[in-house]
């Protein structure tokens, strides 16, 4: 309940404030968002499995975002930023899909 409210509050805040993305953050923000989504779906799956732990959630969330940003940063420095971002997105996408599959099994038993 509160978790859903939090999501709503975040979206409304973003819509209302409409902040400019700082230039240094621009390449990392999309990847970070996808990494965070991965963490969120992982947490939801863990919750439904009954093994949710808020500490694990926070740590996995922060580390996901940081590692994604780090990979992109490293890729940019190595000159393969575009390809590496694509790779990260693909991996995270696969993970999100598998998590969503598990969540679906829990909620719809299908």
């Amino acid at each position, binding site marked *: *309940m*509160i*978790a*859903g*409210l*939090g*999501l*709503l*509050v*975040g*979206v409304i*805040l*973003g*819509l209302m404030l*409409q*902040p*400019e*993305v700082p*230039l240094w953050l*621009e*390449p990392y*923000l*999309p990847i*970070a*968002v996808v990494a*965070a*989504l991965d*963490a*969120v779906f992982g*947490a939801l799956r863990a*919750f*439904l*499995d*009954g093994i*949710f*732990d*808020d500490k694990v*959630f*926070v740590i996995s*969330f922060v580390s996901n975002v940081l590692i994604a940003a780090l990979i992109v940063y490293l890729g*940019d420095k190595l*000159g393969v*930023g*575009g390809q590496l971002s694509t790779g990260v997105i693909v991996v995270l996408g696969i993970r999100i899909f598998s998590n969503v599959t598990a*969540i679906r099994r*829990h*909620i719809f038993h299908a």
Partner: protein
Amino acid sequence: MSEPTGRERLLRSLKRPGSRGQITAAVLLAVVGFASVVQVQANERNDDYEGMREEDLVQLLNSLSSASQRAENEISELEQTRSELRSDTDSRQAALEQARERSTVLGILAGTLPAVGPGIVVTVKDPQGNVGIDQVLNGLQELRDAGAEAIELNSSVRVVAQTALEDGENGILVDETELTPPYTIEVIGDPHTLAEALNIYSGFVDDIEGTDIGGSVVIEESSNVEIATLTEPLDPEYAEPVESE
């Protein structure tokens, strides 16, 4: 109570909010929602090159500069073609102009174009009917000698290179047309020279006004002699132009 299913856990947490785990999840979800909305909006606003990587920008710049290079090449090619075409038209126009001028000159000489200009009008009266082609030919020859450019007899026959004269019953036959006295000779050329040419000693005027013929000649100098009679140009049947290199 056995191990609750995922669905039951979800429902329970919806009914009893407030646990520490839920608040943590709420905060992190707010962060995710905020970040995604910001990114979506930045992405939609980013129709220019603001968010692009350095290498992409470099590539873009390269492709743009090569495209502009191509366009410039095309421009210079087209400009060259244009100037070629222009000079082509110019020279063609000059040739056309020259040909037109030449055809005008030749038309006047050949009698296929009407002509107007300064000249003289000679009226020959022949009360005794003694004027023949000898006198007329003589006069024409003298006029030509004096630079006559177009000659017309009695406002009905144009005298050109092919003109032939014959004695007729009541006058003279010029190109099959019978002319009767008084004869009018209209000539375009320098009026003074033409008049002088007819007036020379024992020339045309002397000849006709002499006692043998007993005619009279009136010469009028005019700044505007009009010659309207035309001849049909003939296609040479036997003569062909010599091919020149």
